[in-house]
């Protein structure tokens, strides 16, 4: 027992090395950097996605353009009311703006990727179909035919 400094009890307990702590945190950091994607826009509409069981995964996230449809968030309801609105990028837009939006999205992608572009319709489950039909018609006019109705996977 004297082997472990029993004779010299005043010897200090060595501090736990914290040099590997940074490695662990860096590993966590890399994990999150790889598995997540940057949030591009701020949500201005409240969206509670509908549920579906037969969902498929969105294949190319980088080729997706998002059309958000829903009632404005609580803070914005004073100015915009509670009627469902369309949000493209960072602001409220109308049906007519979809054309420009799709054109701009298309311009930003490379030539080969353009046929694979998907428009993700992210709509609140209480939205009426009228506005969604209008959006769909406009998308058909712009020949953005691949769409995805975003929905949560229900078990």
């Amino acid at each position, binding site marked *: 027992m004297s082997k472990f400094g029993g004779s010299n009890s005043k010897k200090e307990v060595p501090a736990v090395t914290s040099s590997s702590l940074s490695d662990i945190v860096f590993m966590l950091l890399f994990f999150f950097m790889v*598995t997540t*994607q940057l949030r591009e826009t701020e949500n201005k509409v409240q969206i509670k996605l509908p549920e579906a069981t037969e969902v498929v*995964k969105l294949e190319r996230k980088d080729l*997706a353009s998002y059309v958000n449809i829903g009632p404005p968030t609580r803070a914005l309801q004073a100015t915009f009311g509670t009627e469902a609105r369309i949000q493209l990028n960072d602001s409220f837009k109308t049906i007519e703006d979809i054309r420009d939006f799709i054109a701009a999205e298309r311009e930003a992608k490379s030539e080969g990727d353009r046929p694979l572009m*998907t428009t993700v319709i992210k709509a609140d489950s209480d939205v009426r179909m009228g506005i969604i039909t209008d959006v*769909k018609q406009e998308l058909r006019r712009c020949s953005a*035919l691949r769409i995805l*109705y975003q929905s949560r996977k229900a078990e």
Partner: protein
Amino acid sequence: MGKKKTPAINSSSTADIAFLLLCYFLMTTTMGTQTGLQRRLPPMPDKNQPEQQQKINRRNIIIVRINSNDRILAGSEPIDISQLTDKVKESLSNPANDPNLPEKEPKEIEGFGTYDVSKGVISLQNDRGTSYRAYIAVQNEIVRAINELRDDFSYNHFGKKFSALDEAKQKIVKEAVPQNISEAEPKEVKK
């Protein structure tokens, strides 16, 4: 003098720096994959071209309507959403060759042979007042019906589930059980 050790750089703060970075990424990123129902919209009809699609035989169209109260009509009768999958499956498979249900046409499928492919088209019509939730629920049931038919076909001919097949076989199954969902034109929607 030369033997004097250089003091190690104090590295205890690297963990803090990494934590800060970690927090930054946690705040600014979103996690999880996006899922949903994939659809292909029909191209806008050309004004110069006369409409040709009206030629589809009436028995081949399965009309599913959703009204503004989210009630579902399959064909002409009201139906509950839980029965929709079976109804669509029955119409598309048409096991007894009922003359009122969609007809089947033998079709040559590459790498498989001939198979009686159903010519049924599901036409989904909705009102402007239909809720999106009901619309997605109906879309989901229709996709489920087609997925189940594909699974049945895969079991019968390849002994595996559709998702377990390789790409070439999946293509055969997709051709044998096509996903023909037509999203209605607005003139029908207005009604």
